[in-house]
């Protein structure tokens, strides 16, 4: 008699799963964010083809110091004190911003996630120790932590990427991610489906990789998106202070550094556009991150 199917529900068509189309419809702001991110990404990748000039080309005749450099057909967004084309520097700057932003957020979040998951799993004294250490790390402002890292590590550049800056930005993200992922993992470990897996005699490794980790990917992605934005902001700040990327690498923060009072009046474009670039980039990631959270896990608290 058990072969008689007791739900008289007829073969219903497959329920609709949420698609990208739904995301666009339900999270229009997030969609705008991701479109802007993609545009920036493409600009960064194809920078040599998109940018009108080499970002390091110096043309003193176009320097505002000599009264030139106004936005014009030649230099749509003007030129800087060395007469370098601002638009080209912005486009190449996107490379720096996005690569440093992505790598530092990825490294910071990954290490944080590993520490958080481990802390949740081992529990007991290990957990307590890690938690106290995280509490300690969190009592330093992000930028302070980053500057300290820069101060104590010698400068290292690999393949033109400033490892120092990436590490300095990544480190403050570790405790933040670890804390969120730990609480998520702790919540999941007590759920019945993990109990069911344990009752089935699955190995700890299997439980972690099949049942716990896939369910913390949502907070991981949400956090990483938010942190890429923060990392771009941080890179700009550090470079502005002269502690981040150094000349001649094009960087948005660096473009604002050393602009002295004279240019406030004579060449406002030198100040305006790099700031707009940072703001738009971070804004896009924030928009996307916010929507991603509403979409994947509205109750997540960062």
């Amino acid at each position, binding site marked *: 008699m058990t072969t008689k199917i007791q739900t008289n529900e007829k073969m219903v068509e497959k329920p609709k799963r949420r698609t990208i189309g739904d995301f666009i419809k339900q999270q229009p702001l997030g969609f705008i964010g991701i479109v802007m991110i993609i545009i920036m990404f493409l600009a960064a990748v194809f920078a040599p083809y998109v940018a009108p000039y080499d970002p390091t080309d110096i043309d003193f005749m176009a320097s505002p110091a000599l009264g030139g450099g106004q936005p014009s057909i030649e230099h749509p967004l003007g030129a800087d004190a060395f007469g370098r084309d601002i638009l080209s520097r912005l486009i190449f700057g996107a490379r720096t911003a996005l690569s440093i932003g992505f790598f530092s957020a990825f490294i910071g979040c990954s290490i944080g996630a590993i520490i958080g998951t481990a802390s949740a799993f081992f529990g007991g004294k290990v957990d307590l120790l890690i938690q106290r250490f995280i509490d300690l790390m969190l009592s330093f402002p*992000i*930028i302070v932590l980053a500057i*300290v890292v*820069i101060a*104590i590590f010698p400068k290292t550049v690999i393949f033109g990427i400033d490892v120092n800056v990436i590490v300095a930005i990544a480190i403050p993200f570790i405790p933040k991610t670890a804390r969120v992922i730990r609480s998520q993992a702790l919540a999941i470990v007590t759920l019945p489906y993990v109990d069911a897996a344990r009752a089935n005699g699955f190995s700890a490794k299997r439980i972690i990789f099949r049942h716990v980790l896939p369910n913390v990917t949502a907070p991981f992605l949400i956090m990483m998106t938010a942190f890429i934005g923060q990392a771009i*902001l941080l890179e700009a700040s550090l470079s502005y202070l002269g502690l981040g990327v150094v000349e001649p690498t094009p960087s948005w923060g660096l473009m604002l550094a050393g602009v002295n009072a004279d240019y406030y009046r004579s060449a406002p474009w030198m100040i305006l556009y790099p700031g707009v670039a940072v703001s738009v980039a971070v804004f896009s990631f924030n*928009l996307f991150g916010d929507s991603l959270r509403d979409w994947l896990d509205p109750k997540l608290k960062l």
Partner: protein
Amino acid sequence: MLQYALRRILLVFPTLFAVAVLVFLVLRVVPGDIVEIKMTAEGGIVSQEEIERERERLGLNEPLYKQFFTYMIGLPRGDLGVSLWTERPVSQEIGSRIALSFELAILSTILAVLIAFPLGTLSALYRGTVLDYVIRIITIGGIAVPSFWLGMLLIMFAITFFGKLPPLGTVSIFDDPLTNLYQLIWPALSVGYRYSSVVARMLRSSILEVLSEDYIRTARAKGVFERLVIVKHGMRNALLPTVTVIGLEFAFLLGGLVVTESVFNLNGIGKLFVDSVVRNDLNLLQGLVLTVATCFVFVNLIVDLLYAALDPRIRYQK
């Protein structure tokens, strides 16, 4: 409450101790030879003897535990060592500048709270309307716009309209409060935008969360006036997470001023911080990091006590 407060206050001491140990370890043990870094960074070739002499003079040749001991007993007396650059006591260097940064931080907090509360509340109460969307975009913008750039824009704005740079923090608030405020309002605004955005966003989401709680429905079912439902039943609960964010951001502001003070050329601890890094003055850097972390610990204490005052569940915790 008293029991909770006492326990919470006692907790400050081990925390501070742990912070001090961490800072000591990071800055003394990890980087290798700070004197060498310092002296070679100043340019030129430095002989090994010179380095040795400098190390001896600064007491860096002592065994680590002894250094740690000296450092730790110095701390309670406010002895943070001597700046490697100016040779003045670090505590003096910091002491002469911290008031300005503190004032700036408090001013920004006041501004931020004044802006954030109406924004956050309106955004929550008019959720889904055009007003909400506009406020949300403004506040997302707040965490996107770099505060130092906003500072530059403000300076540019001032130049365009007043024809000159706004005068910078040179007058003490005790001598001439009005001028002082006028001087500090610009940097305060440039930091305050981000600050208020963070608080407004938190306030919005916690009000929305609280308004969907069952006890709000209970209050409405009792026939309580809607305004009272929101203020007495809603806001008080929504304030809890908001207070935390205000506190956290205040503590982080002392670090965040690093960039803003550079833009406005203000002589506060933020600028000192940058200078200490640029000059490789690790003693000063250590003192500054310690100061910032200590501020954080105390602000956290205040937040926790405030939280307990607002939330009986914490107050009655045994």
